[in-house]
């Protein structure tokens, strides 16, 4: 799907609203992510970053709006002017296009590193054991974890777990990769090895959305920054402009408070 700027759009979020009872977590969010772009999602805790990420692969339902990934409406189908939620099969199919890594890694605790990677390859992609193992080894080697292939998550450090989690997501060859605060649970040293992996992903042109509090990561690698406050995007700017010449007063305050720390 091309937009007016003649650039291929990977993700389009249009007027998305999400409510839990009286609480509105997303208050009409709209933005686009172009192919091969790395977009950073910044904002204070509770501003809706995680919720927004989960809506993109329909781990969370939405109340209004539309989300497209590679031109396909996510999670719903349109009939008679209403959006009907898709069934398990169709939603699962769509999710294979979107990889995801989480703040708490969420590795399958009963499986080794390599089994974590091969599980979906086998039961979603239908690869046989040998085929899945080959893909998984390549992927683990790519994140520098091939020598820990047979270790269980409990035997790995946080940084190692996150790298396995990224390998698990990338093995499915997703069109876009969502990283939900991938380094927030890690100390600076462990977070460095994950940042190195993210850097390699961005060099390879992987389309990515990353929610983070790590400003240096954003400054060094992000192409564009979305700044969220209380369920709304208040600033959508190229990274360079975001840091040097922000427009919104909230962004200025945020950057000042982060610099003060």
């Amino acid at each position, binding site marked *: 799907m091309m937009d007016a700027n003649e650039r291929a759009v990977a993700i389009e979020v249009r007027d998305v609203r999400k409510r839990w009872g009286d609480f509105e977590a997303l208050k009409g969010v709209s933005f686009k992510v172009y192919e091969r772009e790395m977009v950073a999602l910044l904002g204070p805790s509770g501003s809706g970053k995680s919720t927004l990420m*989960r809506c993109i692969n329909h781990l969370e339902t939405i109340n209004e709006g539309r989300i497209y990934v590679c031109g396909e409406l996510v999670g719903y189908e349109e009939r008679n002017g209403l959006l009907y939620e898709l069934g398990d099969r169709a939603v699962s199919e769509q*999710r294979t296009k979107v*990889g995801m890594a*989480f703040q708490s*890694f969420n590795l399958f605790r*009963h499986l080794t590193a390599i089994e974590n990677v091969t599980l979906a390859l086998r039961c979603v992609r239908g690869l046989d054991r040998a085929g899945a193992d080959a893909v998984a080894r390549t992927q683990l080697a790519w994140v520098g974890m091939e020598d820990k292939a047979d270790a*269980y*998550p*409990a035997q790995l450090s946080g940084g190692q777990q996150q790298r396995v989690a990224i390998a698990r997501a990338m093995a499915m060859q997703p069109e876009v990769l969502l990283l939900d605060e991938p380094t927030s649970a890690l100390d600076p040293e462990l977070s460095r090895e994950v940042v190195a992996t993210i850097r390699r992903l961005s060099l390879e042109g992987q389309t990515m959305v990353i929610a983070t509090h790590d400003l240096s990561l954003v400054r060094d690698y992000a192409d564009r920054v979305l700044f969220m406050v209380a369920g709304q995007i208040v600033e959508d700017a190229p990274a360079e402009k975001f840091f040097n010449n922000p427009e919104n007063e909230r962004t200025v305050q945020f950057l000042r408070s982060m610099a003060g720390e």
Partner: protein
Amino acid sequence: MSSAPEEPAAPETFRVVRRRQWGAWVVGAVTLALLLLLARAGVEARIVNPETFRHYLFDLEILIGVKNAFLIGTLSLFIATAVGIVVALFRLSRNPILVAVSAGYVCLFRGVPMLIQILFWFNALPMMFQTIRIAIPFTGITLVNALMVDVVTPFRAALLGISLAEAAYLSEIVRGAVASFDRGQILAAQALGMRGHQVVTRVVMPQVSRAILPSISNEYINLMKSTSLAMTIGYLEVLRVVTNIYYTTLEVVELLCVAAFWYLVLGAFATLLQTILERLYPNR
């Protein structure tokens, strides 16, 4: 200071002496004395004649009773697990009818004494349904066509009563384990494009079944012992056989000891099984 450079003082080492717990030793000594008194009273009164005990230990009737207890204890564990999982899934569903049915089931079957439940099924089923007929629809083939009195044997009534009561406990164990399962792993599996049933069978079930293994073993031991309740409806398990014998011979204590011995053996078997399974599937 102007004096000559001091010799560096050798580091003093102290031996650490732990506090003595005199109170615990006193309580220990008193407890031991009381136990010895109790044992002496038993021995002096000759409550167990070793000859009689040994005579009945491998008595054929009693061994059949052991087999029957083992049979019902084990079969009911499987039935109760199956029913318990269904009840737990009802409870975890978002449907108000299923949730209410499940809550009602647990309240009723956990609240009524198991003994009453066994007596109830044995007596009530033949009254509720005079005959039972199970047929394959549209074929005219009848699988079962019998009087309910003949169908509800002591074995079946005991199996039904114990299984249904136990299912209430097991459903709570399963529900607790599933409810406390790491939701992040479910999200991760879904994000990989795994279907609902794949998430359950490949991610949730393997970990939940490992988590409930100790609780299930506990229930298994309980079930082995609960089979003794089936004596009330005339099922020939250990306790029933033993009572039948001592009604005529009056060797009450010896025979109770024989029964207790075999329940201990059954419990030890369950514990052994648990240990083996825990070794086979270590906690990750």
